[in-house]
């Protein structure tokens, strides 16, 4: 059992409200859900859609074919009717869009009329539409009414009741009028699943890591992280500060971190571009910081609400001078939780900057999963807070230790001052110019720390048969689509994939399995959502390996399951030539 539902219309029509409600009903019913969003950089008008794939098995990508299209305007039908499968259905309100598609595959539902009659106001149209979809799929309405109660309880009982009435009316209407409906979702035995998107996952990951300070300047598609943390600020004691610009954002976070609290900032590529000097400052002062970068297509303003994996090499090399960094690129919201948590842990443990690199596709996509492994969430406190450290000689912020890691004291918690400097400095933190101290400090920051950091990272994840013939390799947000693709490829292709989410520094000593599999595979395909093959290049520089093929997408849209499968089949048809 698997269906794809697409809600399409213009910005401001409530596409998101409908989409996220339907997704949540499914996940609460124990179904697996994958959603993704396609929207324009405008507040009203234009054309947006929200797509939901629901299944009784885990799903992690979107399909081309649509089973139910909820068309909120005529353009939605014009643009998307071709995607509707032969057994699929378009539902629309002929009165509202002022056009009647009286033909098979189309079902008129008078959303507005029902909303006015049953709910008492046409603003309930979206509730009617959601109810109708649930009716078509014969999903118990209880869960939806529960959600309506949660969402609208603040607005009073009447609003809740009117919404429920509207939902029920939509539900009934669909069940009565949908003659062509062949959909059915068997009642599911699973308990409710978790459903979250990439931004929420990073925000939640920060929250559980004890992030107490988040400063940022709004920038699509990263703002959701800030919104999530702001919504939890009071309850969990987090300061969320909207900065005047991104330069301030990263410098504030560094100040907070220096003062002893876990701190984070986030932006998209253009905003991060302004943080580059601050990144280098973190490197020099050995101040822990976590930076979320949620990519969108560049250069410059680019396509603000679309997706791309175009900033990998930029982040890996950002900042003047040389200093270590960690870069994680989660492939799913679940991974994003764990990796954000690891980023906080390692940033503080090694006193370096750590990136969580995401993109619009992951940021706005919702995934379901069963539960969280709470024991896998790390929460070590590496700060030195002993008040016993007194006298001028006892504490040196940058003392050179065998591991390169110096004790990290909280200013004010010890009697000795904590001193750091963006200039090259001595162990105490005072500026120096001599060659010997310079060499010692470069070696401390780079060579002493790096080997240990490298050991912390994990090798890529593999899924597929032993000794695959065809090997996909990707990173970050392509995880889900690679996962689903492998399952859709004809078995005789013997396809498998490696997904890298722990990207820098590459844990070279743990890459034996990867390198062996890679060498043995006949076709090796780098899959990337960019034009220049940045990760492919990174692996070449790091490991000296060459792929036989690559599949790249740079139109601002994510990989769709069917398209990736198709692209691979085409590659093979071409005889594996390139």
């Amino acid at each position: 059992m698997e269906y794809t539902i697409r809600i399409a219309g213009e910005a401001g029509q409530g596409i998101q409200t409908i989409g996220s409600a339907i997704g949540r009903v499914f996940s609460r019913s124990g179904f697996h859900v994958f959603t993704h969003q396609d929207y324009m950089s405008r507040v009203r008008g234009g054309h947006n859609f929200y797509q939901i794939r629901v299944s009784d098995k885990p799903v992690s990508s979107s399909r081309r074919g649509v089973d139910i299209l909820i068309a909120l305007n005529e353009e939605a039908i014009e643009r998307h009717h071709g995607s509707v499968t032969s057994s699929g259905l378009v539902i629309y309100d002929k009165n509202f869009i002022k056009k009647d598609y009286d033909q098979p595959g189309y079902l008129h539902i008078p959303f507005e009329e029902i909303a006015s009659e049953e709910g008492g106001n046409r603003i309930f149209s979206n509730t009617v539409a959601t109810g109708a979809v649930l009716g078509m799929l014969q999903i118990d309405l209880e869960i939806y009414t529960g959600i309506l109660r949660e969402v609208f309880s603040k607005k009073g009982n009447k609003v809740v009741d009117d919404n429920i009435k509207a939902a029920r009316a939509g539900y009934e209407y669909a069940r009565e009028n949908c003659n062509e409906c062949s959909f059915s979702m068997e009642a599911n035995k699973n308990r409710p699943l978790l459903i979250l998107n990439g931004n929420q996952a990073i925000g939640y990951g920060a929250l559980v890591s004890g992030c107490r300070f988040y400063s940022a300047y709004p920038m699509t598609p990263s703002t959701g992280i800030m919104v999530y943390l702001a919504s939890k600020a009071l309850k969990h004691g987090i300061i969320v500060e909207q900065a005047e610009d991104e330069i301030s954002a990263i410098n504030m976070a560094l100040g907070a971190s220096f003062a002893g609290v876990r701190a984070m900032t986030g932006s998209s590529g253009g905003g991060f571009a302004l943080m580059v000097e601050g990144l280098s400052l973190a490197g020099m002062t050995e101040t822990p910081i976590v930076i979320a970068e949620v990519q969108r297509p560049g250069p410059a303003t680019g396509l603000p609400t679309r997706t791309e994996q175009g900033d990998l090499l930029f982040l890996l090399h950002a900042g003047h001078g040389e200093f270590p960094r960690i870069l994680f690129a989660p492939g799913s919201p679940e991974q994003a939780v764990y990796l954000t948590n690891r980023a906080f842990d390692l940033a503080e443990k090694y006193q370096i900057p750590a990136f969580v690199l995401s993109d619009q596709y992951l940021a706005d996509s919702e995934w379901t999963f069963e539960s969280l492994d709470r024991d896998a969430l790390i929460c070590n406190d590496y700060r030195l807070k002993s008040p016993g450290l007194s006298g001028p000689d006892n504490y040196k912020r940058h003392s050179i230790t065998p591991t390169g890691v110096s004790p990290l004291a909280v200013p004010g918690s010890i009697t000795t001052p904590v001193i750091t400097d963006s200039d090259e400095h001595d162990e105490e933190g005072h500026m120096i110019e001599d060659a010997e101290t310079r060499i010692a400090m470069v070696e401390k920051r780079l060579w002493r720390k790096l080997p240990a950091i490298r050991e912390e990272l994990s090798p890529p994840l593999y899924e597929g048969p032993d000794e695959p013939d065809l090997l996909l390799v990707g990173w970050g947000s392509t995880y889900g689509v690679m996962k689903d693709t492998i399952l859709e490829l004809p078995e005789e292709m013997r396809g498998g994939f490696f997904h890298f989410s722990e990207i820098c520094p590459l844990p070279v000593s743990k890459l034996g399995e990867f390198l062996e599999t890679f060498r043995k595979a006949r076709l090796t395909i780098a899959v990337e959502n960019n034009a220049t093959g940045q990760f492919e290049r990174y692996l070449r520089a790091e490991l000296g390996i060459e792929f036989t093929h690559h599949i790249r997408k740079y139109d601002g849209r994510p990989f769709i399951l069917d398209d990736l499968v198709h692209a691979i089949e085409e590659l093979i048809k071409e005889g594996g030539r390139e």
Partner: protein
Amino acid sequence: MNPRDEFTGQSPAWCPGCGNFPILEALKDVFTGLDLHPSDLVLVSGIGQSGKLPHYTRANTFNGLHGRTLPVATGIKLANNRLTVIAVAGDGDCYGEGGNHLIHAIRRNPDITLLVHNNQIYGLTKGQASPTTDAGTPSKTQPFGSISSPLNPLALAVSLDCSFVARGYAGEREFLVELIKEAILHPGFALVDILQPCVTFNKINTYQWYGERVYRLGEEHDPEDRLEAFRRSLEWGEKIPLGIIYRRKGTTLEEQIPVITETPLVESPFSRERAVAEIEAFR
């Protein structure tokens, strides 16, 4: 240990006679006068001759990037509002590179004292015009003279309703000590612009030049009168007022953030259990 000795730091790399020396000494007087301890204090500085000051005294220090003192200082203050946070900046640093942060720090009103070593020149980079350089002053990068009209930091601050605005002068150390003390004791963002002769590169605004012009604001000046403060802030040339130009009451940033309670953020408890449990909201 004599309290003033507690604040002895590295030996200064400034030019002999530099106006930064009396500021340094004044600051040590302030610290001892207010009975502060090196570990209660954080000095945040940028890059420039002034940026080196924290190394020449002894306190918690974050000597960051050119122009970025105020965001760092704000982050520190928010993380631990029990610390006395002093930002030390140059005129290029704070009014040039870091101008945007000044505007917004004033708007936020954290309880931070900002000392601007205003030598009307870029000292460390050897004599280019700063935002406060007198119009027409030639330099190697501006051989026809500085064209932009000089920035008036006090007028700017008053226009933004900055909670404490004052001008000091390196040549009047005792007075400067009192001013800085008042600034530190004032709850809210306090800007003290300090006229600081640069004996090497600024051959116009010398000790003598300042000495002939500065005067102390007397009783007749009401620093709570904003219009009057604005009028005074425009005085520059023959007569240059020293003292508190403007002061107002108001709640600080820290007081307005409900997350900050009696305990500073850095010491406030955090329940990991409760945080982890937030996952259930996604079900």
